[in-house]
């Protein structure tokens, strides 16, 4: 698993646009312990995106792509919405599904990959908005969890249909008035994290994307648990600054305000016993790896001085 998968034919290297050359030379495919800290020092797996300036979803996208444990062996399944504007610009295999059926597509894909590549790790990650996850695609979302399909579902929750002008969604908070929902939401925000837990998800997190290290941790946990045990679900608050009347610079503060202990995106986590065991094991291995790397570095520095 590494950049060996993406070699440009030597005779063609010089004619390739620089972003492809960079992807081959400087991307983090196959790098052990890759994470959000690689952003800025390596080639990101997202090219120029087409989201609005300051959009928290674009931050989330960058953190997620930087945190995938094995991007070269990952297939992402997207759905209609702002995310579908970004998928054409990522260096990870991806499928655009019909609006709402992303978890059904992912189920079939995961099973097909297991048959086609037995014994190999192939991660499937669904990334869709709240409309696709909770309204239009709720049936497919839940059925995938009931069946214990081994993939991660990530919901970019911006609490409305942003891409089409601000219609009410199931994850919109009660009383909120949007451009295309002038009466205001009359019922509570659907408690999907709780529903996910009850539906059989082994790892569920509800949070914002204000802290990149936290996003990295939950992404890695969710993918590892899905790989080994069963379905996982992440609900990430990525507010649509345009639809809630904020400026480009105010997305981060909006997330910080919404993650306070009494607010709707206060960090919430559910981990099944099986998943806890796995994550403890993985954390111990990671600690060992880091200690070994530190030791190796120290020895190298010592050898350099000598």
């Amino acid at each position, binding site marked *: 698993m590494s950049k060996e998968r993406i070699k440009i034919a030597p*005779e063609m290297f010089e*004619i390739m646009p620089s972003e492809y050359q960079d992807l081959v030379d400087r991307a983090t495919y196959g790098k052990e312990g890759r994470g959000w800290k690689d952003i800025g020092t390596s080639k990101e797996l997202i*090219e120029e995106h*087409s989201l609005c300036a300051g959009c928290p979803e674009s931050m989330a996208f960058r953190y997620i792509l930087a945190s995938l444990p094995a991007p070269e062996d990952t297939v992402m399944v997207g759905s209609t919405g702002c995310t579908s504007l970004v998928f*054409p610009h990522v260096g990870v295999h991806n499928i655009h599904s019909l609006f709402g059926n992303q978890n059904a597509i992912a189920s079939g894909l995961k099973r097909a990959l297991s048959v086609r590549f037995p014994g190999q790790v192939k991660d499937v990650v669904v990334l869709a908005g709240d409309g696709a996850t909770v309204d239009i695609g709720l049936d497919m979302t839940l059925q995938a969890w009931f069946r214990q399909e081994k993939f991660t579902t990530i919901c970019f929750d911006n609490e409305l249909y942003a891409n089409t002008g601000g219609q009410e969604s199931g994850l919109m908070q009660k009383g909120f008035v949007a451009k295309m929902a002038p009466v205001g939401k009359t019922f509570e925000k659907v408690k999907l994290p709780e529903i996910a837990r009850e539906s059989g998800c082994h790892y569920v997190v509800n949070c914002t994307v204000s802290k990149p290290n936290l996003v990295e941790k939950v992404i890695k946990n969710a993918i590892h648990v899905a790989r080994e045990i069963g379905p996982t679900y992440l609900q990430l608050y990525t507010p649509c600054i345009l639809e809630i009347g904020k400026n480009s610079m105010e997305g981060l503060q909006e997330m910080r305000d919404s993650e306070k202990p009494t607010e709707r995106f206060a960090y919430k986590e559910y981990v099944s016993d099986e998943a806890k065991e796995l994550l403890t094991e993985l954390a111990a291995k990671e600690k060992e790896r880091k200690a070994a790397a530190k030791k190796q570095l120290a020895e190298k520095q010592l050898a350099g001085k000598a």
Partner: protein
Amino acid sequence: MSTMYEVLPGPEHFLPPAAASMGVRLPDPGQAHIHGKIVNEDEAMEVAARQFLSAKVPTIFPGPLVLWAWNEKAAKKATAIRHLYETIKESVSPSQQAMLIPMPDYRPKYPKINPEIEINPNHPNLTIWHNKIDACMFVGVHCHQANLSLKIIRGGTYCYTMAMCAQAGHEDAMVSFRDATADKIMRLADWVKKLKGSVEPPKD
């Protein structure tokens, strides 16, 4: 259905008909087609070589199947394509400008491609217009994307299109080969070399 329709350089119109729907059929192994007419492969080789030699900007568009070294076969084809390009470059007059422009992938790029250095199947006409390309050959492009490009080019430009297809060929190209291999591409390079000096360069 009789074949009266000829696949000729455009601009035909915004949505040219798919040549297949007009009765153009694909060649059998060992054959090729010129403007929709089935011919033997050598005849098409000569026509393709003449097109390269008589164009102001003869261009090869390699696609992902040959740009990336997926396997040994792909790498060999890349070498052959490079050889064909170098042969064209050496064989044309200084007033002609041979080009090798990649189609690295098929995504609709944002905000738009750089037409000077790449071509994209969703708007291949941008690259044709920008570089004033009057003869081109697609090679190593997946068939669906090649068909899309060929139709758009025929619809909106006057460029002469050729396809070196590894499968069954393309009705929508003006000249199409099938079952492309590295050897077949080298044979085309030999034809270019053979006809060097015998084809009149384009007039300004």
